[in-house]
């Protein structure tokens, strides 16, 4: 059987490469622990409830019952995050100037004292110049709160009103975006930085040269590497999913099988870049700068650490065509938005085009020594 004989080296090389990864502590750190560290850092930043909230200081200078109740009400409102430490204007000012607080709400002496029939008063909102938007929206939020209180006190029905209702519970949180970006980042680490370091070393030691004297074909060697990298990468990504679900309450709604297929395609795409650079470079000095030039734009523009929709429109249009962009978008679309592979025509098409370009280049530039 000729095809069996052709695949024997692919399977044998892949098997041994996988075993070797699990024996190498440094490799284990970079493949498994390193992405998890990023997951915890970014999960800590973006994993919180993403409802718009204001960090405020509440300075209550009044002694009325109403003012005490009012402060308690603010504290239980999710929109406000009250910094208890800033209980004087001086402390609040200091934090506002550093951008740690959005505004300070001051309830002046006598706020909430009964005047005539109802308790009344005028709360003041202070904000620094560079936080004008937050300060003004906070003022209007408070205005709304007071209108509500006024309405309950005076019992007059308001002719116009607004009710806000949640549309669905599947809206994307900041963490959902961050997570698929982090997967993209770990695929870059595994697929580009891995081979870019390994191949020049294999050349330096003459290991590829030895293989070159055997009948081993370049495609067999490439395929073996693709298989082992995909297997190791899938393990690493599975662990990231497990941690994200357990610790950061990631909601995975897509089909797992389709997700695996898509992730493997993503790994193959990105690994091709590492293979092309590492396979071409004669030594580390050639490999390192080229891999940085190729990798850094993708890290910053493909949505690894912050979503692409935050970029100016022209930049979004350009960065849509980077090889990593369809990888990250597709993973997010399947995993958190529950899309199917059949919905991902544009992403699959773009990835397919990149696979052809990247592997064509990799085969052309590969050198055994």
């Amino acid at each position, binding site marked *: 059987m000729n095809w069996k004989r052709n695949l024997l*080296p692919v399977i044998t090389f892949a098997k041994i490469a996988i075993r070797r990864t699990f024996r190498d502590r440094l490799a284990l750190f970079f493949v498994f622990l390193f992405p998890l560290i990023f997951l915890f850092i970014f999960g800590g930043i973006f994993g919180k409830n993403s409802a718009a909230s204001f960090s405020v200081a509440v300075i209550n200078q009044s002694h009325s019952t109403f003012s005490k109740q009012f402060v308690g009400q603010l504290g239980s409102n999710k929109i406000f995050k009250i910094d208890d430490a800033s209980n004087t204007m001086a402390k609040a000012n200091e934090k506002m100037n550093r951008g740690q607080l959005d505004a300070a709400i001051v309830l002046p002496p006598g706020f909430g004292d009964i005047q005539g029939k109802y308790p009344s008063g005028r709360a003041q909102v202070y904000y620094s110049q560079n936080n004008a938007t937050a300060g003004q929206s906070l003022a209007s939020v408070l205005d709304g709160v007071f209108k509500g209180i006024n309405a309950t006190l005076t019992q007059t029905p308001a002719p116009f009103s607004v009710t806000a209702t949640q549309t669905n519970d599947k809206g994307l949180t900041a963490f959902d975006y961050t997570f698929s970006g982090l997967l993209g980042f770990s695929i870059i680490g595994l697929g580009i930085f891995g081979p870019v370091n390994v191949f020049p070393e294999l050349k330096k030691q003459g290991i590829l040269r030895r293989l070159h004297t*055997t*009948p081993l074909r370049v495609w067999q060697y490439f395929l073996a590497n693709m298989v082992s990298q995909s297997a190791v990468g899938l393990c690493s990504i599975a662990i990231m999913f497990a941690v994200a679900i357990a610790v950061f309450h990631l909601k995975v709604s897509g089909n797992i099988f389709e997700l695996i297929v898509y992730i493997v395609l993503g790994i193959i795409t990105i690994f091709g870049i590492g293979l092309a650079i590492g396979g071409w470079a004669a030594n580390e000095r050639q490999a390192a700068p080229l891999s940085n030039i190729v990798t850094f734009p993708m890290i910053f523009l493909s949505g690894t650490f912050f979503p692409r929709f935050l970029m100016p429109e022209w930049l979004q249009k350009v960065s849509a065509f980077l090889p990593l962009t369809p990888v990250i978008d597709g993973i997010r679309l399947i995993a958190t938005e529950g899309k199917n592979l059949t919905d991902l025509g544009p992403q699959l098409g773009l990835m397919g085009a990149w696979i052809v370009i990247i592997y064509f280049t990799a085969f052309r530039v590969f050198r055994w020594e």
Partner: protein
Amino acid sequence: MAEKLLVVKDLKKRYDDFEAVKGISFEVERGEIFGILGPNGAGKTTTLEMIETIKSIDGGSIMLDGLDVTKETQKVKYIIGVQPQSPAFMDKVKLTEQLEQLASAYGERVNAKKLLKEVGLEDKGGDYVESLSGGQKQRFSIVASLVHNPKVFFMDEPTTGLDPQARRNLWDLISDIKKKGVTVVMTTHYMEEAELLCDRVAIMDNGEIIALDTPKNLVKQLLDKGFKPTRKVEQANLEDVFIDLTGKDLRD
């Protein structure tokens, strides 16, 4: 089947302005040990690499067992075994795995334990190459280069950097390989090694072969020219003393 195993004709190699191999021709018989000697930079390794199919040929031809090395490269690779100058093995891969991996490159499966036993490494199958001594590495490298039973075996300076015991052990191994009918082509810096092992030697300098004959004939030709050694040849030398004192047993 071609009569001669290896026929090299007018072989040339240039690196930019430097002519590394200047049109050399030689033939290697089946079953012999053929040595290529010469100072550093003489073109020995380049010549070997062109025959091993890993360097392109700029001029001339190489026929190996009736196969043209430039045209039938893939077929040639199945019948050659190559031992590189440095051991060149990946770390954190067991010896048995290394052998399985190399054999798979030829589309073959091997009994790794049996192969290791042939070079006295049967206890080391589960170890990594990095834990072997220099001599053990060299012996392992040989068995790894022979996993596919090649017709011809190329060795580039196999004993450089080994201690006298390990060198003697390697000489025995090379003789055993010859006994199995494998043709050996090797380069070396050690004249006593060439004299002891090689059936014929080619001496290279500046990219040319300046002499080619059996070691005995080459010595005879020199003596016929009226050569007198500068110092009296003793019946034994310091290495003999060393071996006598420390024994022939391998130290690894």
